[in-house]
């Protein structure tokens, strides 16, 4: 019988059915970081249980790391305590830790793929909602809570109910100057922030076929912002090419066998989907958010919504709440909104290709006076790649600060924070109230090239006009 990738991976990892009807699902790969794992190790100690398969858990540190400070102890003792605890837990349990001294540290969702740990046909869990990123490889990757981290450490499994599958096909060719980030912002705006509840998203169509792995990751990363726990792209030659030669990729005779197995996980033609959505790539424009959730997005040419035109009381209330917080005027064009901060980075858009594309368009331009612009590579490897290519130089010459790898201003658990009601043009994934470290700080989500355009003009801008260029 024809099966979807989701079903194939699920079936290969289903251990048994539990008394309450849920499935005990094997989690092949477990990724951990400093924020959500220490409590789970504490629970494990209380229960006197060992880590069942320590070689299947990998750790990195990302959320709390300062991006302008390497030496320890850090100025923030709480950050240092989290760092120490992760180190201790990994050492005591023989867990591989990509610590800052290894040159491989970075945001957990960038490190896994970079190391070749993220592979097709696998199940992955991490105590972080953006774990859906790894689905770009045709893995089923879940963001989980702390108690589930404990379950995975102790049993390499968790209790789960099966998801439905929605295929989202984006067909045709993206217009020049439209990026993967715009594709996912468009999808979320169209289907709603809760539209994916209960679903795994399968992204497909010619746009995804032509996307690089990094572009696929950008889209899968934000599946959760559309309410889908899991998002994936079927593995193909692009996937295989990316993984070849990575540290954890199979080698020798194991390689062709792995490739055959991986490609075999792709959804069969004619398999059942619970829902299918088809989107025309030509309709997608550079997108920005105007509100306080990622679904409150519009194209750069559109105006800020007017609550008076809302179609329901609930919608009116949510537009009003968002505009009050964002201090934006209903009906005004979003283009031209002044910005204070520009942030390039995060697990959505903190990879080599993101910085490469920004460097390509920004060369010769200068960040507007009064705008604080920071570029934070997603991993130490991304940083090294950029530095080798001179991308860091292009960015610093334009007026960006070039920082060390981490989550940084995506959620500001480290010292990189907005101040007061500063408005930030950000390549990250969440624009919730207070997300970037100030309880009144404002976030406008957009693609990295749009962030660059905003940095240069000092206002939300159409990058296609600013750089008089599109996509190659």
């Amino acid at each position: 019988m024809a099966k979807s990738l989701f079903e194939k991976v699920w079936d290969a990892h289903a251990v048994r059915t539990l008394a309450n009807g849920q499935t005990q699902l094997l989690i092949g790969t477990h990724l951990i970081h400093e924020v959500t794992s220490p409590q789970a190790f504490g629970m494990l100690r209380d229960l006197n249980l060992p880590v069942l398969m320590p070689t299947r858990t990998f750790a990195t540190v990302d959320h709390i790391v300062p991006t302008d400070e390497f030496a320890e102890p850090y100025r923030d003792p709480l950050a240092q305590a989290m760092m120490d605890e992760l180190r201790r837990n990994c050492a005591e349990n023989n867990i591989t830790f990509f610590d800052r001294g290894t040159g491989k540290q970075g945001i957990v969702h960038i490190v896994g793929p970079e190391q070749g740990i993220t592979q097709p046909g696998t199940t992955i869990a991490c105590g972080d909602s953006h774990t859906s990123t790894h689905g770009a490889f045709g893995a089923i990757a879940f963001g989980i809570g702390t108690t589930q981290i404990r379950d995975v450490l102790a049993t390499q499994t968790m209790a789960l109910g099966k998801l439905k599958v929605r295929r989202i096909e984006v067909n045709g060719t993206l217009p020049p100057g439209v990026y993967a980030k715009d594709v996912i912002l468009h999808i979320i705006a169209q289907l709603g922030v809760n539209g994916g509840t209960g679903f795994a998203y399968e992204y497909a169509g010619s746009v995804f076929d032509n996307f690089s792995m990094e572009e696929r990751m950008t889209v899968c990363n934000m599946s959760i912002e559309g309410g889908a726990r899991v998002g994936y792209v079927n593995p193909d030659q692009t996937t295989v090419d990316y993984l070849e030669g990575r540290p954890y990729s199979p080698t020798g005779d194991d390689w062709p066998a792995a490739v055959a197995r991986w490609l075999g996980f792709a959804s069969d033609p004619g398999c059942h989907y619970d829902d299918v959505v088809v989107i025309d790539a030509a309709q997608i424009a550079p997108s920005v958010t105007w509100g306080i959730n990622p679904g409150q997005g519009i194209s750069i040419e559109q105006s800020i919504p007017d609550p008076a035109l809302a179609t329901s009381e609930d919608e009116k209330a949510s537009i009003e709440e968002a505009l009050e917080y964002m201090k934006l005027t209903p009906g005004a064009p979003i283009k031209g909104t002044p910005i204070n901060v520009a942030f390039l980075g995060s697990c959505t858009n903190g990879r080599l290709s993101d910085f490469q594309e920004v460097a390509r368009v920004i060369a010769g331009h200068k960040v507007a006076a009064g705008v604080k612009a920071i570029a934070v590579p997603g991993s130490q490897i991304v940083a090294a790649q950029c530095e080798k290519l001179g991308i860091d130089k292009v960015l610093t010459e334009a007026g960006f600060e070039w920082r060390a790898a981490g989550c940084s201003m995506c959620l500001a658990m480290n010292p990189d924070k907005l101040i007061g009601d500063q408005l930030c043009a950000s390549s990250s994934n969440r624009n919730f109230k207070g997300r970037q470290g100030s309880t009144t700080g404002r976030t406008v989500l957009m693609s990295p090239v749009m962030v660059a355009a905003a940095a240069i003009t000092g206002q939300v801008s159409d990058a296609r006009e600013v750089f008089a260029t599109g996509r190659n």
Partner: protein
Amino acid sequence: MALEKISSVVGQAVHVPGNDIDTDRIIPARFMKCVTFDGLGEYLFYDVRKDADGHDRAHPLNDERFKQATILLTGANFGCGSSREHAPQAIQKYGFRGIVAENFAEIFFGNCTTLGIPCAVATRADIARIAAAVAADPTTEVTIDVEAQQVRFGAETLPAEIRGSARDGLLNGRWDAIAELHEGVPQVRETAARLPYMAV
């Protein structure tokens, strides 16, 4: 690893009124910088309980008469917002054993159940009745009966639903999956042995 069978929760109660109380209100995000959940109880509802200088504001949890409360009474959509487990943990570490609300946010409800905290759903009018009785006499003993799906106090018995698998889990000592998952470890190893990547 047998778990306690939770058929009822009995204790004093406190009413924290309001709808859409989100996980950030329950435990502000800055208190997530911690390596154990142990100290979280003292930060429960911190930003509404304390002013900028850390002094107590007027809040039911700051009221001496309700310091013994182990049952939390509240409004609709309780626990919305982020999926972080810090919120139910803070509630439990503070000393609460059960919650009665008009309804609960989905992930929060699941997280509470996993911690063995019964989340009972009652009508706005019934919650107001319990709250009135508790306000009149804070020592009023309130019972959340998981088995009978009722809340009782004084001579009153009110319906209070505890949804399907959560109720079953609490009553049968299966509210936390770890014991059952752990029993399956021999089969876990067999499943893993069939997957080449797990051999690495």
